[in-house]
């Protein structure tokens, strides 16, 4: 099993980079919520860049965390990297563009 971990790093330009790794599901989603909320509350960033390259699994619980965090920062949450598994879920649910990723031709399922 891959442990989940997330770390927030503020940048000089007022943005925050959050790097996550491991498996993001209903049992680990609270950890990402904590990291994102603390970082947003403490730094009030103009944008959050989220690197999910190291996230080897994500379900809709994880997706709900991303949607909520995006709302918290006024739609300025950008996903800067994804694993194939994460990309597939974002594609299936039709939220690639919402997080600043190029949309896939096949589109997503209705939400």
């Amino acid at each position, binding site marked *: 099993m891959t442990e989940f971990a997330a770390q927030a790093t503020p940048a000089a330009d007022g943005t925050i980079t959050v790097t996550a790794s491991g498996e993001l599901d*209903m049992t680990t989603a609270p950890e990402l919520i904590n990291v994102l909320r603390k970082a947003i509350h403490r730094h009030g960033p103009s944008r959050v860049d989220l690197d999910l390259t190291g996230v080897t699994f994500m379900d809709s619980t994880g997706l709900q965390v991303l949607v909520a965090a995006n709302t918290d920062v006024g739609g300025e949450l950008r996903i800067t990297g994804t694993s194939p598994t994460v990309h597939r879920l974002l594609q299936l649910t039709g939220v690639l563009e919402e997080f600043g990723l190029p949309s896939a031709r096949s589109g997503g399922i209705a939400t």
Partner: protein
Amino acid sequence: MDLRLTVDLPRDVDRVNTLRHVLDGALAGLGVAEQARTDIALIVNETWANVIAHVRIGVAFQVRATVDETRCVIEVTHPDEPATEIGNALTASGHSLRVVRSLADDVDVDSDGLLMKVTKLL
């Protein structure tokens, strides 16, 4: 080969990752392609999440995964109560069920005493 795994909810609520990993190991052993394994992992998780979203205190569910050479079947059963009421709740709209429907080859609800039966061909 015929593999059957059963977990009880809500007692095993934090075991979804265990189910996912054991199932993935079995599928890898069968030589199932990574894409199909990824889809099945998501199906298991989203089916589980859908049950959790509708679970009521004191109501027990079982989630059962069965694998043979041709298919992986995820079944949700409810041993104690009439299926209809819970089945209706499980088919309510939600992200989880939409993901399951988009990935699975067949999703059958409330038939033969099962609340949900999700089939993914291998």
